[in-house]
């Protein structure tokens, strides 16, 4: 495949079957799993889609001109995607990140020329969002794309991820993805619901260690503006133990080296698959591989026992 530039190569990622992990890969009532390999995007994550759409939309609205400063709260992938897009389009990027995100992500961002503002680890992503909002108020000429509330984030998936999956898998019965900004689930979910009667849209939400939730006041909680629960049919909370176990299983059995959040998504997908087997329902379940494992090697999730990995992830934003 040939493209005029890196930006033109975003999307159109492979959808691959998982013949070993699928509970019933063949037979008259197959229950099959399909992985959408988003690590094949230019910066290695699903976030390239949203970053490109959000920047293109801001350009259309006349908000961006060369040299302008773009600001974004992100704990990693969105920042890296935006850093690449901003570099190629000539914008300066400031990322607000919790200080407890992995060193690989910081180094990558720095290499792309992005500036990092650290927000307190104890406040997690909620605090990164709050700090970014303060910075935006202090610097009215900066442009905050704000992935949690920017409709272009979900639109990217409505216009690209959803149609790609349906084209490759017309028999799809379930779509499973991670719940962060909720853009992937809202966009892809809406597209599939409009085109596939009865399709189930399932969210896998990471459940972090207690240190991450910390002493956060419940009244100051955060639900992304993009989130619309009516798009989903169910929502599962997946802890680090299951996420790590499935991440490892995905490498060991299918050769796919994914990030930890993908393990959480696979866990939810397998749970649904087992229900289908039990009910004698055939199913084609597509799930999102958000990124590869490289950026998370330093978290300790890929070495030692599951218990050691689980302990290492305590206090980290692993998804």
């Amino acid at each position, binding site marked *: 495949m040939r493209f005029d530039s890196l930006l033109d190569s975003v999307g159109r990622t492979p959808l691959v079957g998982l013949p070993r992990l699928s509970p019933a890969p063949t037979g008259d009532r197959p229950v099959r799993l399909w992985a959408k390999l988003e690590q094949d995007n230019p910066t290695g994550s699903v976030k390239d889609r949203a970053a490109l759409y959000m920047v293109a939309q801001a350009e259309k609205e006349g908000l961006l001109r060369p040299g302008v400063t773009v600001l974004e709260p992100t704990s990693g992938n969105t920042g890296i995607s935006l850093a690449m897009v901003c570099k190629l389009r000539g914008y300066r990027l400031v990322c607000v990140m919790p200080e407890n995100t992995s060193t690989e992500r910081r180094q990558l961002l720095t290499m792309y020329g992005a500036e990092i503002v650290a927000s307190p680890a104890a406040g997690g992503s909620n605090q990164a969002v709050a700090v970014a909002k303060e910075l935006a108020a202090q610097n009215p000429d900066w442009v905050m794309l704000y992935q949690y509330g920017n409709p272009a984030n979900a639109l990217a998936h409505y216009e690209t991820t959803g149609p790609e999956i349906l084209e490759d898998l017309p028999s799809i019965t379930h779509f499973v993805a991670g719940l962060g900004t909720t853009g992937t689930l809202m966009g892809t979910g809406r597209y599939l619901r409009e085109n596939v009667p009865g399709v189930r849209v399932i969210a896998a939400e990471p459940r972090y260690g207690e240190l991450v939730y910390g002493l956060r006041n*419940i009244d100051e909680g955060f639900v992304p503006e993009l989130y619309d629960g009516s798009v989903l049919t*169910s929502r599962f909370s997946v802890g680090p133990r299951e996420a790590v176990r499935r991440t490892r299983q995905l490498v060991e059995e299918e050769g796919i080296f994914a990030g930890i959040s993908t393990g959480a998504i696979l866990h939810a997908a397998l749970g649904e698959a087992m229900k289908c087997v039990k009910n004698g329902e055939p199913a084609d379940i597509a799930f999102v591989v958000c990124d590869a494992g490289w950026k998370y090697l330093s978290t300790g999730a890929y070495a030692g026992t599951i218990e050691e990995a689980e302990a290492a992830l305590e206090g980290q934003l692993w998804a």
Partner: protein
Amino acid sequence: MAIEVRIPTILRSYTGGEKVVEGQGGTLSALLDDLESRHGGLKERLITPDGGLHRFVNVYVNDEDVRFLGSLETRLSDGDSVTVLPAVAGGAR
């Protein structure tokens, strides 16, 4: 009938510092009433005055969000595990 309920750090002032408490009830609503009898004040942190789940509170039964199961009327049975968590922004997304 015993149901295990995991309490987030921020709400442990109502459970005497306990991380996990036990309760009973055939529905989530009944379980919360039962917990309230021993851990007064907890219920009003989870439920709004008009009787719905607080927007920034997520409750899971066996890891599934109750908003997709039946909210406060979600059926519970012996051995179920209930987890209460504050809503947080997504991570690496």
